[in-house]
């Protein structure tokens, strides 16, 4: 405390004190200015501002621009938008919350308790969605009673719709409300709680192109939350339009044919891998997802033992059965295991070790060369040559044709199984037995393939060894018609096998349909040569079911899968097709007529188009575009 002694030099002078007083007066005067301003605003003009604040308030309303449309390759509309009316509620504006919610619950057919709870949990100042896509009747009722229920309002937003209802639903996919995880990821890209986005199929993969911009418009609202005028509009920016490679007419035809079956049809353009049709049955109606699927329907779809949401074309894995003989044929000829005219005598069985492998034909096919081994689908021929090839080379040729790994079409695609010694050690921690090679040779061992792989296999045979990556999105155009994306065919690999062998295999496949003893004579067409291969894949060892049993007597899961793959025309293929009947319990030849129908339908249609090609391709594109007005709802 000593150094704090009052030192006259350091003490404040009178002049200093005077300045402090002046400063105080100055401060006081300015504070007085604030006081006057407050008096003016709150007391004199208060009433005016009170009115301003209560009656006409500015509110923000979310505006969702329409999502881009989806078209098929011919410009047929597959997905667009329609106007839907949504009820919103701003809790803070509601006078009698309980009563209002009770009414809303009643007219939207929701349980009161749940709706009340959800409403209580929402931000009281933001519009809260009570129900999307209400009926016109409900809407009329609300409009009429609006003054009685302040805080409730109806807003129009575009809602996804698929005019075709069930067709190509696995390819198109569906919409769903954004999940919390997606929201975390997409927040930066202007996604909000409650937004709908593509959750499956093209809707999902093309989300970034299809999504329309969303934003807020500023509106002046009255005390009841009614819009009086738009203060600052939001300029809509619709999403881009996606054009698929599929031909919707062909797709519809395929769906129609396959209506009563489960399984899949995949049709490819062998010249570049474009998907012309992709059917997976049973299917679903994507429209029920558009405004958010209700829990009951969702549960129903999930619990259905036939799994309608599963896209069997790329996710169904089945033993290939005899269509695997196509791969085997290439291996046998290319590895020079047998010359094509070399005959093997088929007695109807192939003894190996303690086991006897049976041919499907009792008594056997007799002497049989390469062409007939395919045409008649002789098992013994492939038991014999498959044994000589060994599993290593069989696996090598399988992979060469794209089996054992996804074709690259989509992210959720399965790859199937190409069995080998290494695979078996990995999978079962067990070595490979030679007897297993013999089952594999006729597509009946551990091998699994997807319908997409089967279609790609037959397309590759048809085009002379170009293994293309299948694709479904042809191009994406902006609403104004600017090309944003155009897909180019992607070659996975050129099969390193001579054209001579390709010609031989194709000839054999033609014999399947057109030969005297071919297994798919039902696929014959009067004017066009078709090449194909049947396959019947057992799901379980014969000793469990017995050969004689009728398929109807077996439980569904034990019934055979039926395959038919084909291409046409034989000389200059323009269509490749794979049909799989899941647990159809039929021979593969059962589906041969289906293939014939689809081939003839497609070729005839193309022919007509070629005939009518006074129209240049350029015109066609223009006419396709003209069907795509930017803002259709």
């Amino acid at each position, binding site marked *: 405390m000593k150094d*704090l002694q009052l030192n006259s030099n350091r003490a404040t002078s009178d002049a200093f004190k005077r300045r402090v007083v002046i400063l*105080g007066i100055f401060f006081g005067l300015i504070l007085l200015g604030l006081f006057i301003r*407050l008096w003016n605003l709150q007391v004199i*003009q208060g009433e*005016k501002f*009170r009115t301003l604040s209560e009656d006409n*308030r500015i509110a923000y309303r979310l505006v969702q621009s329409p999502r881009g449309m989806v078209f098929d390759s011919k410009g047929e509309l597959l997905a667009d938008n329609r106007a839907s009316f949504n009820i919103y509620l701003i809790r803070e504006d509601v006078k009698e919350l309980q009563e209002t919610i009770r009414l809303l619950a009643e007219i939207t057919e929701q349980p009161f308790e749940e709706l009340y709870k959800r409403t209580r949990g929402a931000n009281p*100042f933001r519009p809260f969605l009570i129900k999307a896509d209400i009926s016109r009747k409900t809407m009329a009722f609300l409009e009429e009673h609006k003054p009685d229920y302040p805080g409730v309002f109806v807003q129009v937003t575009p809602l996804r719709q698929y005019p075709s209802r069930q067709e190509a639903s696995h390819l198109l996919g569906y919409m769903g409300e954004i999940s919390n995880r997606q929201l975390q990821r997409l927040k930066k890209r202007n996604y909000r709680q409650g937004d709908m986005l593509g959750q499956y199929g093209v809707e999902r993969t093309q989300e970034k192109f299809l999504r329309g911009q969303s934003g807020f418009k500023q509106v002046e609202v009255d005390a009841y939350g009614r819009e009086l005028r738009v203060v600052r509009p939001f300029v809509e920016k619709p999403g881009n339009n996606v054009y698929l490679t599929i031909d919707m007419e062909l797709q519809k035809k395929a769906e129609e044919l396959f209506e009563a079956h489960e399984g899949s049809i995949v049709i490819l353009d062998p010249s570049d891998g474009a998907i012309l049709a992709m059917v997976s049955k049973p299917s679903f109606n994507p429209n029920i997802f558009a405004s958010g699927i209700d829990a009951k329907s969702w549960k129903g779809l999930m619990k259905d033992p036939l799994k309608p949401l599963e896209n069997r074309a790329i996710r169904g894995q089945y033993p290939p059965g005899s269509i695997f003989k196509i791969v085997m044929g290439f291996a046998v000829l290319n590895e020079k295991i047998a010359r094509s005219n070399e005959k093997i005598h088929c007695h109807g069985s192939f003894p190996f070790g303690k086991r006897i492998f049976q041919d499907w034909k009792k008594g056997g096919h007799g002497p049989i060369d390469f062409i007939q081994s395919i045409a008649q689908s002789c098992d013994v021929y492939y038991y014999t040559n498959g044994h000589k090839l060994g599993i290593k080379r069989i696996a090598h040729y399988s992979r060469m044709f794209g089996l054992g790994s996804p074709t690259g079409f989509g992210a959720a695609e399965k790859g199937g199984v190409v069995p080998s010694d290494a695979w078996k050690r990995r999978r079962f921690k067990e070595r490979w037995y030679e007897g297993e090679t013999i089952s594999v040779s006729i597509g009946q061992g551990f091998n699994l393939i997807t319908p997409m792989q089967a279609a790609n296999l037959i397309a590759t045979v048809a085009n002379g060894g170009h293994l293309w990556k299948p694709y479904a999105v042809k191009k994406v155009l902006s609403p104004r018609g600017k090309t944003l994306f155009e897909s180019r065919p992607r070659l996975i690999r050129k099969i390193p096998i001579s054209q001579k062998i390709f010609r031989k295999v194709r000839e054999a496949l033609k014999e399947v349909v057109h030969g005297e003893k071919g297994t798919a004579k039902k696929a014959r067409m009067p004017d066009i040569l078709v090449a194909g291969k049947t396959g019947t894949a057992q799901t379980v060892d014969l000793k469990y079911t017995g050969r004689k049993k009728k398929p109807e007597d077996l439980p569904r899961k034990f019934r055979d899968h039926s395959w038919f793959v084909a291409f046409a025309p034989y000389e200059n293929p323009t269509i490749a097709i794979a049909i799989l009947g899941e647990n159809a319990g039929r021979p593969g030849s059962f589906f041969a007529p289906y293939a014939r129908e689809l081939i003839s339908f497609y070729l005839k249609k193309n022919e007509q188009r070629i005939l009518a090609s006074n129209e240049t391709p350029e015109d066609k594109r223009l006419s396709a575009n003209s069907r795509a007005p930017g803002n259709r709802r």
Partner: protein
Amino acid sequence: MDWLLVLATILLSLTGIYMIYSAIHSNPVFLKNSLHLRQALWSSIGLCVLLSILFFDYHFFTRWAYFFYALVIVLLIAVLFSGQVVGGSKRWLVFGPLRLQPSELARLAVILVLARYFGSRVEEEPMGFKELIPALLMALAPVLLIIRQPDLGTGLTVFLIAGVMALAVGIKKRVIITIGTAAVACAPLGWLFLKEYQRRRILTLFNPDADPLGAGYQSMQSIIAVGSGEIWGKGLLQGTQSRLHFLPEKHTDFIFSVLSEELGFIGSITVLALFFIFILRCLITALNAADKEGALLAIGVTTAFFLYVIFNIGMTLGLMPIVGIPLPLVSYGGSASISSFIAIGLVLNVGVRRRSLSSMFS
């Protein structure tokens, strides 16, 4: 001890905590983080800091002023390099869970360092250029660093605090006239350095209706909120303007709008009166200070509070351009609260030392 000053401080803090709750109660995120409770915590910590400051003589703080000043300069430089960017400007330094706003400390540092510098002057006659220049440099260094963040409002207030302190010490008339003329001449030049949005904010001050949805929007909404409070206010938690998200930053910079809307003229002039008492008591402390150093400390703190109050309230009443300046003790913010309590602690300290001394001599 100046109990009236302490009472005003506590009342203002309590008002702040309640108004913060009112401002955020419609925002689920803020509410979940209980910003009002955090503010209560900051205020309590601030009160403790205030009390502990009383245990030391204020000369202890002025003795360390240069050191503290250097530390703040280092922090201000650090914030430019590794500061957290909020709303386009770098104002925060992050140390683990703690966030520090060095510009809040800078005003304390400048007050302390100038109190020390001017306080050690023995001469009675007004200052000339020679004595002013070191002070000017000491003030300008942090000011420029703060403006770089960019935080024009805070930078300007710190500079004005320095100016008022210098004026209180006394400046030669000739020098005042020269500087004043130079400032007027340079004003158009300063306009060139302003960012586009800053210019627009200043222009809307003169004509807020010109662009009701642009720059004038916030200002207009704030005026509507204040005015609609009328005499008695809409009642606690009943504000409509503020809860409808018309007002940004309502728990920080626009807290006074919320208060005026909900508590009306009565509420807003009460707060104004509390600030008036507060400033008055601080100035009386300055008048009665034991020495020049103490007096200058009190003047600096008073000026700081005064400037913050008129800038903030002036902004919410449409009298000042919109600059990010909080209402001391009332607005939400940890760094601001604690630095306010420290400042008040220093003023109380000056008052206490005087009395204990005079009682010794009487």
